[in-house]
């Protein structure tokens, strides 16, 4: 099978990469601009012995992928805006039960039905805080086709490694852009599978922290390893508890399994920051415009660099702090009315002047608009 280089859209790349990562189950409900992920999965999964199902809504899709993952099969769902809202209760269920799964949200304008065919980045806070209760979240946001491939694979790896849902954020531009994609060598891809129990069934507990903050996970139907899973707060055996000490410790552990592994989870790209006076902080498709604006500014002799978070949550705080120490101004262009700039502000504080470009008019933020802002702050 020689399919190393192909012409694909971002959404199609997600599906191809998911299968390469070992995903064998998709459940979803059609919604623009995410539907191509489902179409490719429906076509390709049966051929690799996987299964696809179009459910009755997004809530059911999310339930189905959690069920399938618990039965031992890597699973994914893809959606956009309204569908992402519907998935939230079950994303929380996956958080508290610590069942790996991947949720793709191809962001479109909102709130409500909003702008089905226009790009947006207005779900970045929802990705962190969408479901109720305290919970850890990993959210990744690639900018380039090849990166969509690697970050999709990484979504599965992180979800398996940390027993947590991972949210992969695309937007209408990154999801629909077509291009030549050079596939990484599938044999050389790093694929991580969930840690299985090493103890016999009678000593197994699904939330046993004696092996670290990420307990090994037996699959449903593994011989002898019968256990209970509930969305209620539970003890190490998986059964509900109302013991205050156990609840506090468990909720803190769930956050810690992410916060203690930031170096493994966080990924970002830095360009031209060594001598920069101005830094652009941009993610997803907006980072593509930011990069173009940076190049034009550099050509005009303005020292601009780009800080591009690929992991949005947890946010690359340490990396951004170093940038904030160096530059006098940070510009955050994003297709929302001011979301990630809040996180940037929390980190940067008084270290640099902060300027936002917040555009939600259905059009992508142009390099010209970013360049104009750069020139404004240079004066």
């Amino acid at each position: 099978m020689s399919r190393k280089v192909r012409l694909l859209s971002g959404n199609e790349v997600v599906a191809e990469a998911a299968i390469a990562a070992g995903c064998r189950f998709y459940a979803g409900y059609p919604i623009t601009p995410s539907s191509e992920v489902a179409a490719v999965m429906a076509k390709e999964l049966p051929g690799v012995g996987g299964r696809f199902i179009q459910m009755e809504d997004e809530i059911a899709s999310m339930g189905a992928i959690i069920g399938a993952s618990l039965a031992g099969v890597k699973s994914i769902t893809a959606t956009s805006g309204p569908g992402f809202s519907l998935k939230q209760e079950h994303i929380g269920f996956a958080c508290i039960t610590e069942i790996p799964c991947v949720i793709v949200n191809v962001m479109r304008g909102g709130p409500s039905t909003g702008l089905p065919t226009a790009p947006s980045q207005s779900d970045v806070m929802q990705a962190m805080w969408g479901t109720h209760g305290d919970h850890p979240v990993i959210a990744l946001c690639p900018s380039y086709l090849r990166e969509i491939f690697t970050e999709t694979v990484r979504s599965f790896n992180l979800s398996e490694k940390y027993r947590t849902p991972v949210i992969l954020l695309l937007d209408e531009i990154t999801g629909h852009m077509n291009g030549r994609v050079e596939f990484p060598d599938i044999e050389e891809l790093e694929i991580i599978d969930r840690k299985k129990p090493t103890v016999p069934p009678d000593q197994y507990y699904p939330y046993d922290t004696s092996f670290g903050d990420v307990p090994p996970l037996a699959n449903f139907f593994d011989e002898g390893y019968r256990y209970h899973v509930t969305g209620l707060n539970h003890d190490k055996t998986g059964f509900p508890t109302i013991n205050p000490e156990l609840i506090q410790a468990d909720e803190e552990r769930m956050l810690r399994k992410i916060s203690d592994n930031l170096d493994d989870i966080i990924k970002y790209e830095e360009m031209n920051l060594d001598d920069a006076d101005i830094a652009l902080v941009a993610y997803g498709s907006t980072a593509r415009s930011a990069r173009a604006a940076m190049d034009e500014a550099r050509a005009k002799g303005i020292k601009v660099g780009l800080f591009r978070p690929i992991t949005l949550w947890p946010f690359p705080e340490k990396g951004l702090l170093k940038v904030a120490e160096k530059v006098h101004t940070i510009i955050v262009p994003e297709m929302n009315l001011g979301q990630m700039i809040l996180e940037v502000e929390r980190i940067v504080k008084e270290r640099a002047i902060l300027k936002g470009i917040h555009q939600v008019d259905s059009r992508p933020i142009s390099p010209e608009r970013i360049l104009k802002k750069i020139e404004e702050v240079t004066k």
Partner: protein
Amino acid sequence: MTFPYEDYLRNEKLPLLWCPGCGDGIVLKAIIRAIHKLGWKKDDIAMVSGIGCSGRTPGYVDFNTLHTTHGRPVSFATGIKMVRPDKHVIVVSGDGDATAIGGNHFIHACRRNIDINLIVINNSIYGMTGGQFSPTTPIGINTSTTPMGNIDPAFDIGQLAIAAGATFVGRQTVAKGLMLSKMMEEGFAHNGMTVIDVIANCHTQYGRRNKLGDPIKLIKFLQDKAVPLRKAEKMKPGELEGKFVTGVLHKVEREEYTDAYERLIKEAKGQGGK
């Protein structure tokens, strides 16, 4: 010979948290008896539930058990069955869980005819949240949210399941535990979507608010409304007013969903089929 319930129970989890006399315990026993008769291995069974008193059932049985969200257990069960069609999947739900918040999942699982065994413990009220009316509460009944009597027309869960496409549909009351268990045995063995509407007592909520607070009194009250299918077939429609029909209401053969998907896999891999 006493029946070996303890082989299937997580005995350390007893006593049950349900109110004394609750019909949920009768359903639990009936399920275990049916599984024992079928000889299913505990490792091969997943029991899934939603939220409510009924939702606590899986906690007591020594299977692979999953207590999900309110109304959505069938969606989780669908994911499990899709990837492990060789295993047995049982869902225990309440009338609110299955037909109010979960109504959409209920009808679509029936339509697909996926081999899930759905037991709806139908006590015609929201037990856990304090006795609000449900989609199966009869007209006129007092609940905490119908203080002047219920005006919402009720669903007939059996008819709903049949219309939606389930291929095995039965109804029985908790007064007939052994018959219920026999029905489950037949329904569990059936390859396709099985729905069993179990008419159950919630004397604590439904009973207390309607002068039927004693479990035996309420179970008798419910049983008096039950008309076995054979008898019902000879009655005129008007005579069934205020009553419900019990027995296997519907049993047909139609391709099961994961079997159909297996065909797709074979076809995609180029083995057999066209």
